[in-house]
């Protein structure tokens, strides 16, 4: 560092300033706010750990944690599904691979809110196309977005569907990195397609899979927009399906309790941080970087 002088710092400065202003300062401010009682327009008074004791005693928080975990777990299922699709799409000689890739990736580039509004119409219990389709088979479909568990699963299935595209791109890149000779050698040794998949494809994809599971978990804990747009803020099911971020939104912008909202934000940060740390610890056992 000493021999490079000050220039590296000058080049890093613009980015660093951005991180400082938009990432680190809000982090510190949120942490501070979580120890205050803050009104809708600011004006903070220090209240110590009162917000955190309220957090511990709030049954809605536990419900929100469970909902968020269930949602994240379902969306994580998108990774194995995407592994399967990615290896099918990357089979040599597949016709129209680009078309499939584009189709799978489309949901990822569309606006989540717009997609949610379309799915809101599809899921509609009285007039929705999903229940009309089920009706053809004589099934009387439920009211998808107003029954507690169905609503949560409806949101999670949407999240899963939307995640496939991104997963697919990352995994396709991972697949491209696997040398073709390995497959040739394997087939010379008499390994069939499924054994090649288990012994070569999956192990060599583990770094990508690990990356996706970390990213998906973080995104899962930030569940808000699909929930808000698909179910709607005045949906009577909301108290039973709300996520941690929804709880934050509710406290900050409906209940006008900014301090408590900040405490919820800190809780989310802590949970996500711990889960990520845990995943990094665990990766030594199953991720191969050879």
């Amino acid at each position, binding site marked *: 560092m000493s021999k490079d002088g000050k220039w590296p710092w000058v080049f890093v400065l613009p980015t660093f300033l951005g991180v400082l202003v938009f*990432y680190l300062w809000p982090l510190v401010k*949120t942490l501070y706010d979580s120890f205050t009682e803050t009104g*809708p327009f600011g004006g903070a008074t220090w209240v110590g750990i009162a917000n955190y004791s309220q957090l511990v005693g709030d049954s809605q928080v536990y419900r929100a944690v469970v909902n968020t975990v269930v949602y994240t777990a379902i969306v994580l299922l998108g990774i194995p599904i995407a592994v399967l699709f990615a290896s099918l799409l990357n089979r040599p000689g597949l016709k129209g691979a680009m078309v499939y890739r584009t189709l799978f990736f489309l949901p990822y580039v569309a606006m989540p809110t717009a997609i949610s509004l379309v799915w809101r119409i599809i899921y509609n219990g009285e007039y929705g196309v999903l229940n009309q389709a089920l009706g053809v088979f004589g099934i009387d479909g439920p009211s998808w977005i107003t029954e507690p568990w169905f609503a949560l699963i409806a949101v999670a299935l949407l999240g899963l569907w939307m995640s496939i595209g991104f997963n697919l791109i990352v995994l396709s890149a991972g697949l491209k990195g696997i040398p073709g000779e390995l497959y040739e050698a394997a087939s010379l040794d008499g390994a069939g397609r499924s054994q090649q998949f288990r012994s070569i494809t999956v192990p060599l994809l583990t770094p990508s899979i690990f990356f996706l599971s970390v990213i998906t978990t973080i995104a899962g804990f930030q569940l808000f927009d699909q929930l808000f747009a698909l179910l*709607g803020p005045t949906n009577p*099911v*909301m108290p039973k399906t709300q996520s941690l971020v929804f709880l934050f939104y509710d406290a900050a912008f*409906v209940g*006008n309790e900014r301090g408590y909202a900040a405490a919820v*934000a800190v809780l989310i940060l802590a949970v996500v941080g711990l889960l*990520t740390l845990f995943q990094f610890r665990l990766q030594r056992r199953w991720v191969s970087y050879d």
Partner: protein
Amino acid sequence: MRIPSVLAGLTLAALALAGCGGNSGGAGDAKVPDDPAKVKGDLTYAIWDVNQQPAMQQIVKAFNQKYPDVKVSISLATFDQYFTKLKTQGSSNNLPDVFWMNGPNFQLFASNKQLATLDGLIGAKQVDPANYPKALDDLYTLDGKQYGVPKDYDTIALWYNKKLFADAKVAAPTADWTWNDYKAAAVKLKAALGSKGIWASGDNLGNQSDFYPAMLSNGGYVIKDGKSGYGDPKSIEALQFWSDMVKGGYTPTAAQNAETKSQDRFFDGKAAMMWNGNWVVSAALKSPYKNDFSVVPLPKAPNGGRKTVIHGIANVMSAKTKNPEAAAAFLAFLGGKDAALIQAKAGAANPAYTGTQTDFVNSAPQYNLKTYIEAAEQYSEPYPVSKDTGVWNQLETDDLIAAFGGTKPMSEVGPQVATKMDEALGKEK
């Protein structure tokens, strides 16, 4: 590559959730413009209704004929996000110069010193509160000071679909109907049309449109002297009326309304009646069945009482506008007769300025809209609010509306809501 993205993801959570700081200063008195030529500057005008945007643009145009050097840009946000956005802007001292305000949010903004009083404008006779219904002036007055210039007003009446009534061979509603007639008609309508997926009473069980008017008609109340009225026996009877309508399958449940907006049902010809405000007129005119609708006064409570709430939007000015003269000039113009007539002729909203409503009534002659004006003059009560109305409005949504049609009687639910609401009212500062 990998670790920085994870860190970025982590901090992203914090970024999205970061609170905002900033303290509010003192509310400046609105200043009065003198010579129009001297008033200059840029203003932002925030509104939430896309249906009314063209009328607002016409008003800005008319304003610019008098004040050519003031540039007004209209900023539109959907209602769901409007107040969230304003609160965020307020905490960083970036409120728009002039903006729409509603009753439930007014006291929150005024008591937190976000709004300028009308002292200057009223003192100089450039805004005269006598031009607007008193209930609206009162709605936008806090601690003896008025902050809002009433823009429009709405009351509640009974909408019905003439064709569906004829199909079901049920006599059309009249001004003499009571709740019993309403329910009896619903029973017949359901029997005749229910199998076609048509609702008898497609009401949305909203506070303003459905249960506030019912509670007041029956002699109950929503809030009085800082106490909740949900435990009052008269209020409970009114709530039970709606709960029974849901239980009988005449009115959709809160869950069904969450999936399909009740007014969409009505305007799609899937419901025969609904209690609703005059803000739905422009939506009614866009319906393919627009000529099938008409309006009569709300049915009376069994005791003969009939009440509706009156609510209206007001135009307000930010306490911290950088251009108080231009903002005051614009606010005064918005409150004037010319602006009221532009709104009325466009059918955008029923203007608050006394004597200008005829043009609104005539903008849709087939709907008998004078019902709304008569309701305002003869049997309206102010929209119930407190300092932090949004908090107990949320209780109404979560605890009360969700319980309509459920197994618990309203004599049990009402007092529970009242207890929680009193608790919330006690926390207000």
